[in-house]
């Protein structure tokens, strides 16, 4: 533990441990410049936290990583998102395929209107998984720390679960297909503190097998689970709001010894 504290402030990221390298020069919605000049590397088996005031574009950045933003009309992107050496925005890349490798967990728990089992099996069936679907569903539910609560009612609707259970079901659904990266967009913001704590514990457990990018508006959450943290802020000028990356580094450095004054002001609660 103490040795990691002595690491240099700027992380020296080995390319071998890098799963994604995201250089977001410009993200437009129509004529609106939502995000500019942000470069975020995402390391293997780590949790990369995205924090910042509301409207700073952290969710926009996250949704650009698996091309979910392609569904938004007027979305334009300058830069690159390298995923295991391939540009996600490269020529001939199918966004549908990208999303099968880079899974997503949303702010609102959003199980499908089907049974718990079918929810988790959905991605497996989508990918025409040849093995035993039952085994993988069980594995995924165990991985999401939900198995013990639902093993006797797999045929019950996913919508009948509590909010926290629904969110863990969505996590199980996302990990059933064993994606390389899990993007989590404020996964706890609709949950109570106890459910939040369970999902946080789960995230730390999951990083052994997965790489996670986590957007959170909760700074304590970032300090609890994130290994590295990206702090975004927002430029408000000429009636426009443009988010950008202010600082990126190991979480302890961002919170204990920020290099930028803006970061320091934000984490000490001087603005939000």
């Amino acid at each position, binding site marked *: 533990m103490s040795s990691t504290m002595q690491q240099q402030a700027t992380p020296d990221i080995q390319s071998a441990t890098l799963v994604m390298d995201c250089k977001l020069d410009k993200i437009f919605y129509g004529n609106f410049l939502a995000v500019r000049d942000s470069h975020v590397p995402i390391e293997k088996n780590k949790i990369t936290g995205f924090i910042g005031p509301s409207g700073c574009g952290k969710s926009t950045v996250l949704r650009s990583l698996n091309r979910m933003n392609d*569904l938004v009309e007027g979305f334009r992107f300058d830069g690159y998102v390298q995923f295991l050496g391939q540009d996600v925005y490269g020529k001939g890349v199918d966004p549908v395929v990208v999303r*099968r490798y880079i899974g997503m967990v949303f702010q609102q728990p959003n*199980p499908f209107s089907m*049974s718990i089992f079918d929810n988790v099996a959905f991605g497996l069936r*989508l990918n025409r998984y040849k093995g035993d679907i039952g085994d993988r569903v069980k594995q995924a539910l165990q991985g999401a720390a939900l198995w013990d609560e639902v093993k006797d009612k797999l045929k019950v609707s996913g919508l009948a679960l509590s909010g926290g259970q629904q969110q863990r079901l969505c996590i199980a659904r996302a990990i059933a297909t064993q994606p390389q990266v899990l993007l989590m967009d404020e996964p706890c913001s609709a949950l109570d503190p106890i459910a939040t704590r369970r999902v946080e514990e789960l995230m730390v457990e999951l990083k052994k097998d997965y790489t996670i990018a986590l957007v959170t508006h909760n700074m304590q959450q970032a300090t609890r689970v994130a290994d590295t943290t990206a702090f975004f802020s927002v430029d408000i000028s000429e009636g426009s709001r443009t988010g950008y990356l202010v600082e990126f580094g190991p979480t302890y450095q961002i919170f204990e010894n920020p290099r930028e004054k803006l970061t320091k002001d934000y984490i000490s609660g001087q603005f939000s």
Partner: protein
Amino acid sequence: MSDTQPPPSRATPSLQRKFEGRALRSMVLSGLVWFLAILTSVPLLSVLYMLITQGGARLNMEVFTELPPAGFEMDGGFGNALVGTFFMVGIAALIAIPVGIMAAIFLAELGPSSKLATAARFAAKTLTGVPSILAGVFAYALVVITTGTYSAPAGGVALAVLMLPIVVLTAEEAMRMVPKVMKDAAYGMGCTHTQVIWQIVLPTGMPAILTGVMLAIARAAGETAPLLFTALFSNYWLLQEGHLAVMSPTASMAVLIYNFSGMPFDNQLELAWAASLVLVMIVLIVNIVSRIFGKPKF
């Protein structure tokens, strides 16, 4: 009030209901809406009462198996009309349901704000208000004139024209009710647009779509005007000497009621009442079935 007394707001308030001002107005309005709500159910209940008392007496197995009687004949039934109604509603459903649901998929998912969608939506809304006899005129021109005969398919087409807008509009509404976050989840799993529609939007909206379909079927089963000059009427079975007499005039419950209720013979009048009761029961059963199917499974 003297200065030594506590301010009035501190006095113990009376929680008793006072019959004045807004309380009174509220009571009068509540009474009024109660009365009006009861009033709206009066027509249905009185129609049902009439049908059961007048038609119930004549209801027996015979009416379902016999052909309609001629002028001074006794007994008889409306078996061929029942078969004809089912057959023509079936044809109409086969046309209107697939076309309507496909159109709704376009309206809700593929091009919701396109010019074509705006035009189609407007057309569907207008069509729901078009007098049903015009659907008959349309089918007459389209099918009866081109085939040279009144027939069950002509009646089916006329009924399909009436069902179509109901199916389109309710199915579009049903698909729009599917939460966006649920569709996002499917996209996030790596679904194509087509997969999102077939695996998430349609199944999730299916109960509500089925409700619309059942309502459309119930509406079509009771229509008379569009059948008058498309299917006309027949005193014979649809199945004649072992083959389906598809391309010939076809009987239907609604037209039988229309024909018999104007006749001066008691036997025919009784049959018209019994047929009305059966038709209302069919519509009622379809509505009940739609409620059962309409309940979301999950």
